[in-house]
C-alpha cells in the first residue's frame, strides 16, 4: 500500500491550512468535496437582474425549490438554502447525521466546508482570548500573518476596535459603507463618550474580502449576490487555496471520500474512507494524520475510531442574539442596489464582569424579502409594505457571546452513527439592554421584545470537543493538536480549541492549523 507522509482529512479552513503547513511533504487530502455545479446564471447586480429578467426562478428559488427549504425542513442559514449554495450542505444529514433537541447546526461536506458561505469576518485571538490555551499569541502571530496574506483582508487600523482586532499592516482599504452604516458610524463618533463609558466600541469590520486585486482574484463588486452565488472572487474561501494546492502538486486530492475511522500502527496510521462513487471502503496509509473535518465530523471520526458510544465530549458554540435596529429617518429611502450583505461594522461590548460580547452589523439587501416577511408584525400584505419602506432603514446587530465548557452541553456518538448533540441554552445577557439604550441615543430604535435568539448551534462555530491542554488526558490534545494516547493523530480544526471567545474563530483555526501542519512537517523531516 502506498504510504504518504501525511493524510489530511477535509478541505475546510483548518484542513486547508494544515496542508499548507505540510508543504514539502507528500500529502494526501481525503475529502467528500462536493462543489458548486451551477452559478453561470448570475452575473451582475441582484436587483438589476431582478428587473432585467422576467424570471429568476432557477437562481433564486431553484428547480428543486431549494429556497423553500425552511418551509418544510428544520431551518438552516438563509445562505445555505439558496439553490446554487445548497451544495455546501448537500447530503450532510444523510452521510453525517446529527441529532439534537433544538439544535440549529449543520455540517458541510463541500470542498472548502462551511466557509463557502461564511461572513468572512476575521478576528485574531489575542492573549486575552487565549487564556486557558496551552499556546500563546506569539505562537500564532506568524501564522496569522501568513494566512491573512494568502486570503487578503480589508479593514482599517487605528479605529476603536484596534485593541480588539490588533494592528495588521497588510490590510487592504475597507469595503464601502452603506449610507445607513456611514450614518451610524458618524453618530457613534459624536456620542463616543457615552459608548466609552458603557465599555462599548464600534469600528469597521475586518473581512477576508478584497477591495483591490490580489493573486488573480478580482475585488468585491457590491452586487448583493452573497446569498445566491458561490465562489465570489472577492470573498475568500478555502476552496481557492485547495485548488492552488492541487494545481501546484502540493497535495494529492481524492474527492468523494468520506473518512470514517483511523487506526494507528507502530509505523503509521491507516485511514478508512467510504468511496461515495463505488460504495467501497478504501484504506490509505501515512506516517501522520491531520484531521480537520470540522469539529463535529472530526469528533465523529475520533469516537468511531475508538469504538466509543458512551463518552460525551464537551461541545462549544457561540450563543447568538439578533437585535434589529431601526433608523426612522431612513424610512422610505430608496433601496441601495449596489450594496452588500457582508458585515459592515463590528461592535465590542464588555459587561461588568469583564466578559466580552462581539457583534456584527448587517443590512437587509442580501436575503429574499420572503425570508422574513412572515416574521414582521403586520398582516401579510401589510408586512410587504413594511418590507418595502422600512427594510432600507433597518440594520441587524448579530451578537455573539463567549462560551466555556459546561456540563449540560456535549456530543456523543450513538451506535446508529448519529451524533447526539446537546447545547445548553444561553440566558439573555444584560449587555443587550445597554446596547439598545446606546443605539437609541444615536437614533437607532429597538426593543428587548424584538430580539431574536436563534437555536443553539446556529452560529456554526462548533469547537472544543477535543481541547488542547498543557497536560492532555483522554480525548484531549497537546499544544500541537496531538491526540492523547496517539503518536501520529493530530486534530487541527475547531475541535482542539480550549474555549470559545466571542470572536468568530475561523482565522484563529486557520492559523493554528498552519502552525500544527508546520510542526508535523518538522517531525516528519
Amino acid at each position: 500500500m502506498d504510504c504518504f507522509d501525511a493524510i489530511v482529512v477535509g478541505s475546510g479552513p483548518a484542513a486547508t491550512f494544515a496542508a499548507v503547513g505540510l508543504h514539502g511533504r507528500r500529502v494526501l487530502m481525503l475529502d467528500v468535496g462536493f462543489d458548486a455545479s451551477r452559478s453561470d446564471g448570475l452575473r451582475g447586480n441582484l436587483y438589476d437582474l431582478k428587473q432585467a429578467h422576467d424570471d429568476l426562478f432557477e437562481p433564486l428559488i431553484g428547480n428543486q425549490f431549494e429556497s423553500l427549504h425552511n418551509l418544510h425542513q428544520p431551518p438552516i442559514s438563509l445562505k445555505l438554502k439558496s439553490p446554487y449554495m445548497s451544495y455546501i450542505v448537500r447530503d450532510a444529514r444523510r452521510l453525517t447525521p446529527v441529532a439534537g433537541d433544538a439544535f440549529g447546526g449543520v455540517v458541510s461536506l463541500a470542498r472548502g466546508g462551511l466557509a463557502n458561505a461564511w461572513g468572512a469576518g476575521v478576528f485574531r485571538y489575542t492573549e486575552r482570548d487565549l487564556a486557558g490555551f496551552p499556546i500563546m499569541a506569539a505562537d500564532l502571530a506568524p501564522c496569522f500573518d501568513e494566512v491573512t496574506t494568502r486570503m487578503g483582508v480589508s479593514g482599517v487600523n487605528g479605529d476603536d476596535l484596534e485593541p480588539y482586532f490588533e494592528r495588521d499592516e497588510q490590510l487592504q482599504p475597507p469595503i464601502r459603507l452603506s449610507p445607513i452604516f456611514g450614518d451610524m458610524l458618524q453618530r457613534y463618533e459624536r456620542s463616543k463618550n457615552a459608548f466609552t463609558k458603557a465599555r462599548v466600541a464600534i469600528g469597521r469590520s475586518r473581512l477576508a474580502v478584497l477591495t483591490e486585486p490580489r493573486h488573480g482574484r478580482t475585488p468585491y463588486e457590491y452586487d448583493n449576490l452573497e446569498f445566491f452565488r458561490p465562489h465570489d472572487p472577492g470573498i475568500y474561501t478555502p476552496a481557492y487555496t485547495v485548488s492552488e494546492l492541487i494545481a501546484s502538486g502540493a497535495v494529492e486530492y481524492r474527492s468523494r471520500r468520506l473518512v470514517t475511522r483511523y487506526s494507528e500502527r507502530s509505523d503509521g496510521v491507516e485511514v478508512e474512507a467510504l468511496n461515495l462513487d463505488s460504495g467501497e471502503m478504501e484504506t490509505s496509509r501515512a506516517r501522520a494524520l491531520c484531521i480537520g473535518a470540522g469539529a463535529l465530523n472530526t469528533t465523529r471520526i475520533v469516537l468511531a475510531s475508538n469504538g466509543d458510544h458512551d463518552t460525551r465530549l464537551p461541545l462549544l458554540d457561540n450563543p447568538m442574539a439578533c437585535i434589529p435596529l431601526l433608523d426612522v429617518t431612513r424610512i422610505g429611502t430608496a433601496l441601495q442596489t449596489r450594496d452588500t450583505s457582508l458585515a459592515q461594522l463590528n461592535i465590542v461590548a464588555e459587561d461588568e464582569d469583564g466578559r466580552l460580547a462581539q457583534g456584527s452589523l448587517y443590512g437587509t439587501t442580501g436575503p429574499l424579502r420572503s425570508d422574513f416577511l412572515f416574521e414582521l408584525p403586520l398582516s401579510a400584505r401589510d408586512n410587504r409594505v413594511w418590507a418595502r419602506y422600512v427594510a432600507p432603514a433597518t440594520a441587524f446587530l448579530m451578537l455573539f457571546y463567549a462560551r466555556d465548557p459546561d456540563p449540560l452541553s456535549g456530543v456523543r456518538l450513538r451506535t446508529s452513527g448519529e451524533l447526539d448533540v446537546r447545547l445548553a441554552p444561553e440566558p439573555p445577557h444584560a449587555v443587550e439592554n445597554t446596547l439598545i439604550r446606546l443605539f437609541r441615543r444615536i437614533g437607532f430604535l429597538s426593543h428587548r421584545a424584538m430580539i431574536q435568539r436563534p437555536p443553539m448551534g446556529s452560529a456554526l462555530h462548533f469547537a472544543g470537543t477535543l481541547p488542547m491542554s498543557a497536560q492532555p488526558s483522554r480525548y484531549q490534545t497537546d499544544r500541537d493538536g496531538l491526540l492523547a494516547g496517539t503518536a501520529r493523530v493530530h486534530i487541527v480544526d475547531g475541535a482542539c480549541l480550549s474555549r470559545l471567545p466571542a470572536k468568530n474563530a475561523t482565522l484563529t483555526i486557520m492559523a493554528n492549523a498552519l502552525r500544527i501542519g508546520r510542526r508535523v512537517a518538522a517531525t516528519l523531516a
Partner: protein
Amino acid sequence: MLFCGPCRACGHTEPRTGNPRRGVSVSSRWGWGPSASVKMTDDLAAEARYLHAALFPQPVDPAIVERYRDAHRLLFAGEPSSPLVSRIVERRLDAEAIEYALRRRNAGRELTRKLQMLSYLAEARAAYQDEFVNRKTRRARAILALAAAALRSRWKLLKGELLVRRHGLL
C-alpha cells in the same frame, strides 16, 4: 356575481365561482388513482389562485400557479391536504386575515407556509418587484402607507379573529 354568505357578512367580497363540492374536504375528494391526481392538481391550482388574490393585487401569473403545484408535488407529496386551507378556499374566507390572526397565536402554520411559498414564487418574477422593494426615495408616501398598513392590519386582525371563531378554524 355570487357572494359567499358568511364572507359577505364579514365584508369580504371575493367572487364565488360556484364550487359544487363545497363543504367536502379536499383529501376525501382526491381519492386514489390518476383521476385523483388530476383532481389534486386542479385543487392546488384553485388554491394557488385564491391565496394569491389574498396576497397580491395583480392577476396571478400562470407560472406561479404551475410552480405552486410542482412545489407541493415535490416537497409535500406525503402530506395530507390541510383542512384549514381547504375550508378557507371552499368558503372563500379572507385568507390574509385568518393567517394573521392565527400567526399571532402561533397557529395555522400550514396556511402561513402556503402564503409564504407564494410570496417566494412571486419574488422571483420581475413583474412583482415593486411589491417587495422601493427603488425611489418616497418618505411621505412611506409614512402614509405604513400608517394605513398599521390600521389595515388592526382591521384584518379583528376580522381574522372573528372568522376563526365563526368557522371553528383553530
